[in-house]
């Protein structure tokens, strides 16, 4: 699965606390993505990165920030978690070349109480 890991795999936190999710890849892919998955909505893009320190917003970026200081790590931060951010978060990488395929990490289940 393209050497993608996510941490933590599960987290329960309280409203108003900061949360950082980590995505780590071992194959130096340029593009990395953060999605959230909620029932009835499929996968919605939060932010993506096209290189170290190069990031852009997706369709549901409000309340989230990202950072990519190294090729292998892409961090997603919820500065002040809200209950509406309870979701399953998936990281993905995009393979180079013409296929544009995305490979997903195992996901992080986040619950905000």
């Amino acid at each position, binding site marked *: 699965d393209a050497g993608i890991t996510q941490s933590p795999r599960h987290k329960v936190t309280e409203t108003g606390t900061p949360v950082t999710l980590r995505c780590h890849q071992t194959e130096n892919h340029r593009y990395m993505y953060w999605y959230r998955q909620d029932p009835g*909505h*499929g*996968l*919605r*893009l939060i932010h*993506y990165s096209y290189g170290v320190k190069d990031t852009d917003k997706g*369709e549901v970026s409000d309340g989230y920030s990202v950072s990519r200081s190294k090729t292998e790590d892409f961090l997603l931060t919820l500065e002040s978690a809200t209950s509406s951010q309870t979701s399953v978060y998936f990281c993905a990488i995009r393979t180079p070349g013409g296929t*544009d*395929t*995305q490979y997903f990490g195992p996901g992080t289940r986040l619950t905000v109480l």
Partner: protein
Amino acid sequence: GQQVMQIPQYQHVQEGEDFTTYCNSSTTLSNIQWYKQRPGGHPVFLIQLVKSGEVKKQKRLTFQFGEAKKNSSLHITATQTTDVGTYFCAGYITGNNDMRFGAGTRLTVKP
């Protein structure tokens, strides 16, 4: 808002019956991809279609990309219990770097 629509949201079939899910985009897609997600798992890439009118087959799965590159379908012949999961279509909007996913069709198969 979501630009890639997928129907139906749910489909329950008897083992051996056929299954089809449809995907429609409000804008032209540079390509369309299909993913399968098993319960509790993560999305796994199945196939990519690039050309207008393209049809590809993987054993019992047939994928089509519309002539206008705005719609696609996945058809499974003679479903098996191993086909259970949620099937997502996803496409890159022409000129964009981000992929938009349909909401998925959740397939359940009764043995």
